[in-house]
């Protein structure tokens, strides 16, 4: 069921500007780099501050570097920081075998905020994600972040979910070491907590997954 034997592994992190895609893509990328993989991360910029969609394509290979954009149908996992963005990315790059792990808290685009367009219901989103994916996992990462005192921590909660879902061969300890390298003491504790809560939530809701770590090939 996992992607351990697939090469490359294509993970797309979908969100809106300001949600922290880039941080997650860097953490994931650096973690896989340390395990001797080729990593390519492609991103959209420029519109990020001002309400646009942001997708980070993280392509991981043991053999050779990949292009910065995922071919249609080749996304193995969509990590959603926002549910409609997860659906958007899934529809663009996913296929019948794609896994989806997503936050359920919406960020309304302007058209919806002013009552000119309708934001789909969570049921409708889940329904369509279900039709377009192999398996989907949901959690309210934003609420966990809010409970910890900062809604922005939702991205770190999703990082935990990514590790916890077991679809990607990622060691929890590896990620936690990345966090330690990145954050100073005051911020570290909070981010670690968010990360671990996300991991625990996913495991609680969808079952614990064991895997052996895998090393990349020569470069």
């Amino acid at each position: 069921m996992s992607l351990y034997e697939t090469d490359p592994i294509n993970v797309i992190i979908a969100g809106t500007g300001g949600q922290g895609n880039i941080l997650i893509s860097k953490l994931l990328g650096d973690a896989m780099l340390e395990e001797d993989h080729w990593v390519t991360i492609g991103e959209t910029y420029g519109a990020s501050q001002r309400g646009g969609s942001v997708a980070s394509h993280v392509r991981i290979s043991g053999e050779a570097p990949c292009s910065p954009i995922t071919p249609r149908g080749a996304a193995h996992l969509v990590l959603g920081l926002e549910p409609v963005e997860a659906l958007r990315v899934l529809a663009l790059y996913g296929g019948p075998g794609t896994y989806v792990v997503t936050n359920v808290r919406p960020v309304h685009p302007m058209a919806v905020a002013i009552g000119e367009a309708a934001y789909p219901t969570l049921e409708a989103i889940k329904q369509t994600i279900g039709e377009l994916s192999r398996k989907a996992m949901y959690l309210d990462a934003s609420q966990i972040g809010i409970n910890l005192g900062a809604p922005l921590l939702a991205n770190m909660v999703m990082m935990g979910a990514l590790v916890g879902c077991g679809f990607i061969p990622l060691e929890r300890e590896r990620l936690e070491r990345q966090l330690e390298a990145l954050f100073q003491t005051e911020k570290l504790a909070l981010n670690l907590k968010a990360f671990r809560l996300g991991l625990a939530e996913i495991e609680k809701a969808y079952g614990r997954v064991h895997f052996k770590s895998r090393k990349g090939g020569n470069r």
Partner: protein
Amino acid sequence: MAGIAVNRAGTTQLLMGNEAIARGALEAGIGVAAAYPGNPSSEITTTLAQAAKELNLYVEWSVNEKVALEVAAAAAFAGVRALCAMKQNGLNVALDFLSNLNLTGVGGGLVLVVCDDPGGISSTNEQDSRHVAKALDLPLLEPATFQEAKEMTRWAFELSEEIGNACILRSVTRISHARGNVTLGELPHRKYRARFDTSRKPYASIAMTTPPVFHRALHQRLIEIAGIFESSPFNRYVGPENPELLVVTSGSGWLYSVEAVRTLRAKGSAGILKLGTTWPLPHNLVRANLLRTSKVLVVEEIDPFLEGNLKELAADIEPGRTWRFFGKASGHINPFGELDPDVVINAVARILEADYNPRGADYEHTAQQALQGLVPPRALQFCAGCPHRTTFWAIKSALKMDGRDGFVTGDIGCYSMALTSTGFSQIKTVHSMGSGMGLASGLGKLDRFGFDQPVVAVCGDSTFFHAVIPALINAVHSHSDLLFVVLDNAATAMTGFQPHPGIETNAMGEEAPKLEIETVCRALGVTVEVTDPYDIPGTTEKIVGMLRDRGKPRVLISRRECALTRAKREKAPYVVRVDQGRCRGESCGCDKFCVRVFKCPGLVWNGDTGKAAIDEALCSGCGVCAQICPRSAIVTRVLP
């Protein structure tokens, strides 16, 4: 210690293409970097600026790209290696200097990095800068991977010194902004003694004598360069000896082509010639590879530059030998817009007559439906609290009240978004830096042909120094009838808040003299007024009055710090809420005025209650919306 200056040769990091280019320049031991911000090139210079103190570099955000190239060339004239980076539009600005620099040559190494924006994701055009290299007979390099971005940049300085001329390195968004594995090299210990050799022949081309002479010398030099390129490690072939299809590619096309061959499992029938040196083409190398087969697919970003040059070359290889070329001319590769792996995969599949159906028709159908029906669009908009929103609001009201069908000529920056409803669709023209003023200067002289519409030219503070001043001088000297509104938010915001001459610091974080826009304008003899865009009635009234004052340029500086800058520095001044009892919602007298017309992202509509509300997560706390509610239902409270 700045990350990029880490001297750990042999370690591997995930670097952005632009960071890799910066590292390559550092590994070449540059002394000077000059640039003007422009997406997707800005990070090159920002990264170098971070290392400036440590490595004793001079890094400058110049007033525009032409001056930036001149500053870099100056260093090269004095024997100091220098890098200049810009986006494709910036190359146009620098072109006058560059098209003389190629003739005069340089002393020390000079590398010009141009980052194109295929698809115009953050540009007003998607021009292909490579044509300039061919037109000016300068060597052109295109990195295809992040490692190569570093290696090529470093090597380009050696090449530049060997040929005594500038080198052009062309990147695109997908290389510049994507990240990948880069293994670091050594940082040299260089000590420069900058000196301009006054005894050598001048760096000058003189009318009547030198142009054709220097031009011929350039052509001769080009042949030498092609010879160097024959053995460059940046060119290589991967694939069978005689493939059915030869894919010739450069830049970002390389990784897409590799992806295509891998996806289609076509290693046995398709070979890839990767070219990193794309002008001048190394004839022998290209010739040898072309002779492998008769079907050639060219994969490149934007124009059929490589494609056209290959066909030129192919015509002279062997009389009677023909090839079937596929690419932009044949429609296999898109001749406009950005490249992506699906385009290349489909092109190769088509040529090799292979089946490629990655997700099946049913999935495709459901996915398309989801994209169209279920998923609402996300538009670009001004941030909550953005002073541009209120300036354009005041302009809109004023023009309507004025009643003479006036309009706004626009320029480049965040405020360009006033083309759309976020800025009330006020801007009617956008071209290049400074064009808003140039056009207004022309429009303001058409009265003799019956023109009677008021013209408002707008520009930002950085744009003012970049290109607007000469156009303003033109308007003053020709008594052009226009109102000039400078949107001064004390930032080059759109590209990432780089400093400019109106800011008190420079690229390296040192103090710098701040030039006042109103002082410059007054020196030109125009009346200047200043307004705070957060004062909507005051600003509107000012504009209404200034629109009536005709016959010469008038300047209004609409000055208020960018909301993002303020937010980084301090807390919001107000807590804002909508009094649900007072809000009129959809009824006559309001009709959702704040959310539907004013459209600050902090204002949202609650369809259940039929009232407006403040989204606390997005609200910037500026309190401006309280001025526009017709029922005074928006209430602000000062935060202690």
